[in-house]
């Protein structure tokens, strides 16, 4: 199954995001952002398996003022 990645800036935002998504029934797991996505920057990502809800997940997190990083942001 293809997974979708939501990149955030820190572990705190990743865990906060995970909880917000979980309350909405969107399950994710937290990983260090892969280098091919992060460039040289450090950060954490949420891996969303239910790709159909990816956009919903992004919008939800943005509504909570969580900054979603673009791939290679900070490189």
């Amino acid at each position, binding site marked *: 199954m293809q997974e979708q990645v939501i990149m955030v*800036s*820190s*572990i*705190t*935002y990743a*865990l906060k995001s995970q909880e917000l998504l979980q309350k909405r029934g969107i399950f994710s797991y*937290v990983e260090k952002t892969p280098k091919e996505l992060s460039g040289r*920057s*450090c950060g954490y990502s949420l891996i969303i398996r239910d790709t159909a809800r990816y956009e919903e997940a992004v919008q939800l997190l943005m509504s909570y003022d969580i900054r979603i990083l673009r791939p290679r942001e*900070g490189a």
Partner: protein
Amino acid sequence: MIYFDNAATTTPKPESVLRGMERGFHVYGANPGRSGHDMAIKTAKQVFECREMLADFFHAKDVSNVVFTQNCTQALNESIKGVLRQGDHVIISCLEHNSVLRPVHKLSLEGKITYSIAKVFENDDERTLRSYESLIRSNTKLIIATHGSNVCGLVLPIQKIGELAHSHGILFLVDAAQSAGVLPIDMQRMNIDFLCMPGHKSLYGPSGTGVLITDHGETLDTIMEGGTGSSSTEYTQPEFMPDKLESGTVNVFGIIGLKEGLRYVRQKSLPVIYKHEMQIASYIYTQLSRMPGVLLYTGPLKMGRNLPVIAFNIRGLDSEETTEQLNQMGYALRGGYHCAPLAHEYMGTLEIGAARLSIGAFNTIEQAKRFCMDIKKLLKKTISIEFAGMCDRIILDMCNFV
């Protein structure tokens, strides 16, 4: 040993704190927020859960506003030095601990800021407020208030002071060193911009833990920079919270212990804890007030107006001599100046200091009764020594006369 020094730190800690920390040593030994392996993520989750609990307990706007520090002093320094700029004016109360006074005073000695000291009036909030208000200037940036004095236990009207501060567009910092885990604190309702507290006092966490909660973290100058596990390739400190104010590895096991301590406090509930502690403190206060040889420095203890903290002296004894005698009798109290010269100036004890008794959740009324009986014995002993001294002097004078 009967421990009456909870204002310094609480002991014992709840069993759950010890168990939580022990489990942490075995299971959560990784560095949170640095690596990507499973143990690092799980450890980070423990830290995050403590942050969440604190944010909820103190009504912070967001979990990211919760910053872990090594103690309350660090939290105070980060806020005070972080928020103040050249030319700012600060108002503090006359009961502040050195952890507020010293950073403020240092900044003033450096010519960076000026500060004023507001008077506190026991059982008269309006006068206390007017004192703060009378000191407000056009350049007042920050008002600081201890929620409760670590020496005499007087509680300040922080909600009203917060309202006053915000009505003038001034930021408000509360030193909750003695009140976090005893009195309810709602940052939103009380207009608190910076809330500083130790983890190791009435939150029953271990030493080496402290907390700063603020919505203004992103506007603060940092006093420490370093590795945060985020934005690693940038030479500058991240601007987002809590990373901006949390450089280096946090005290993971301490935070896990703090989480359990906070859970203990929540389960017991603040009203139950406060009532229990005040019942014991009030009993002791009442007994001491009936002993002519004991000097007290506040009126009778009142719920909401006092913390379970009593400052006292025994006539004829230096305060540290009193606490040393009590130590030999099996009681742990603190004598001297309690890192709070302003409070001693307020109490009129700048020359002699005071003995301080501070109650915690694990103290009992039986301990209080035993203490009061032993104070009577100490008074008798002190009077006997004084009387013997007087007799010696009389005899000596008579011999010299002859």
